[in-house]
């Protein structure tokens, strides 16, 4: 047991160190969501004058989006790194060692979760610096960090599955626009009940990303909203289980001994 744990720790550390050594992989997930937040919170501030808008601060409303965007970046980073391991033959060399397949996945995802939580702390710090105070208090901040870890796990596992299935970094990168579409066709910029165009409101309603955003948003602007939390954690948990199952099934094919 301790051997497996050692393997997980070693591989998680490698995953984190590798990401830290590539500044673009660190700066992208930190800076890009913050720029989008700045642009949108400035440009869409007038939206808070709409009747029924849930808060007077658009920054507080929009602060939920970087958490989900950060998780998308985690998907790309973890998937691309694993694909590179496959392409460079690192995974083949690992298969010659007694390392367990589960340890490989856990280590890779441990790195993604660590970075996801670091990103979440950064987004929270920026939010606090510009005057956002989470309505759910200190307890809500901990739940927010827990949720960030869960979505980093879920999306990281999805990226790992894509990498294991295709063995190509480019194929993993090509998933990014798809996730981007999911992000934009959601309630990221406006509450669903205020979306005027019916097809867009319907698309946002069936889009699971809306509920992930609304889970984070509820902790920041509403307080404790059981329904939003249950939906957010439920969907993130389902994605995590599905992606981990698929990645677990794809791994033996890549780690043939």
């Amino acid at each position, binding site marked *: 047991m301790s051997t497996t744990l050692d393997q997980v720790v070693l591989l998680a550390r490698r995953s984190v160190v590798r990401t830290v050594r590539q500044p673009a992989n660190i700066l992208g997930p930190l800076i890009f969501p913050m720029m989008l937040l700045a*642009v949108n919170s400035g440009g869409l501030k007038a939206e808070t004058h*709409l009747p029924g808008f849930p808060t007077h601060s658009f920054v507080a409303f929009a602060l939920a989006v970087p958490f989900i965007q950060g998780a998308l970046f985690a998907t790309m980073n973890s998937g691309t790194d694993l694909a590179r391991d496959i392409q460079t033959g690192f995974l083949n060399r690992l298969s010659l060692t007694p390392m367990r397949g589960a340890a490989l996945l856990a280590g890779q995802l441990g790195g993604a979760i660590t970075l996801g939580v670091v990103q979440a702390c950064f987004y929270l710090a920026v939010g606090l610096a510009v005057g956002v105070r989470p309505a759910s208090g200190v307890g809500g901040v901990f739940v927010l960090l827990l949720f960030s870890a869960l979505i980093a796990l879920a999306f990281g596992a999805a990226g790992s599955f894509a990498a294991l299935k295709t063995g190509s970094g480019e194929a993993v990168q090509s998933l990014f626009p798809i996730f981007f579409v999911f992000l*934009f066709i959601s309630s990221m910029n406006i509450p669903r009940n205020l979306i*005027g*165009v019916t097809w867009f409101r319907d698309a946002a309603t069936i889009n699971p990303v809306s509920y992930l955003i609304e889970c984070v948003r509820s902790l920041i602007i509403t307080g404790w909203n059981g329904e939003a939390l249950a939906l957010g954690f439920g969907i993130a948990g389902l994605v995590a289980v599905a992606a981990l199952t698929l990645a677990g099934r794809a791994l033996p094919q890549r780690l043939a001994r």
Partner: protein
Amino acid sequence: MRNLTVARAVAWRTLHNVFTNKALVIPQLAFPLFFFAAFAGGLSRIHNVPGFDFPENYTSFQFVFVLLQSAAFGGVFTGFGIARDFEGGFAKRLLLAAPHRTGIVLGYAAAALGRWLVTAAFLTVVGFAVGIKVGGDGVDLPALYLLAAILNTAALFWACGVAMRLRTMQAGPIMQMPVFLVLFFAPVYVPLNLLNGWIHDVAVINPVTRILEAGRSFIAGQPTEVAAAFGAAVALSALFSVWAMRGLRKAEAAG
């Protein structure tokens, strides 16, 4: 004359490469469409915000931004192709073979314009299909497309200058990010008078704001800031043409 021959050959090759490769054609058409759907569809209620004085519907308001954005990114995407030509070694052979190298830059500019015209036609058809309303007449609407075409050329010259200095595909974010920022620091979602704080101050000095506001005034049939908008677009284009030509000299010097 020799410049034109070189330009025609470069433009034809670039357009041929783009329109025979699905991986290049589809994003070029899908990205603006996606932004159009996300902004015009998702944010249409913003038209009800007090002080939102655009006379046509919100779809028309966003159509102008997406059209200008597609023009700018048409230039940037062509810049990616220039970087790819350098990485693959084709550009070096082109520099050796071309009797007048200025024609190379002109050819890429013509190709950027050609590929954007296809995107613009596609966007326009979709726009009318989903209900954009045009208050402008037979002069106003062509003026909007002319403004966008000049912006396309300015963006191409910017991206070309970067590509010729760095000569690697890794320069992609350097070409793309400033264009993305300058576009989004303009009044994208609401008119300028509804912006507050720092974003208003940035938007006021952003030349793209003049272009965007004039573009929207054309579609509304109430042209305003026309001279300022064309002045800004032409100035950007002239400035970046110098940047691109100097980039060409640096690429020549690098061998």
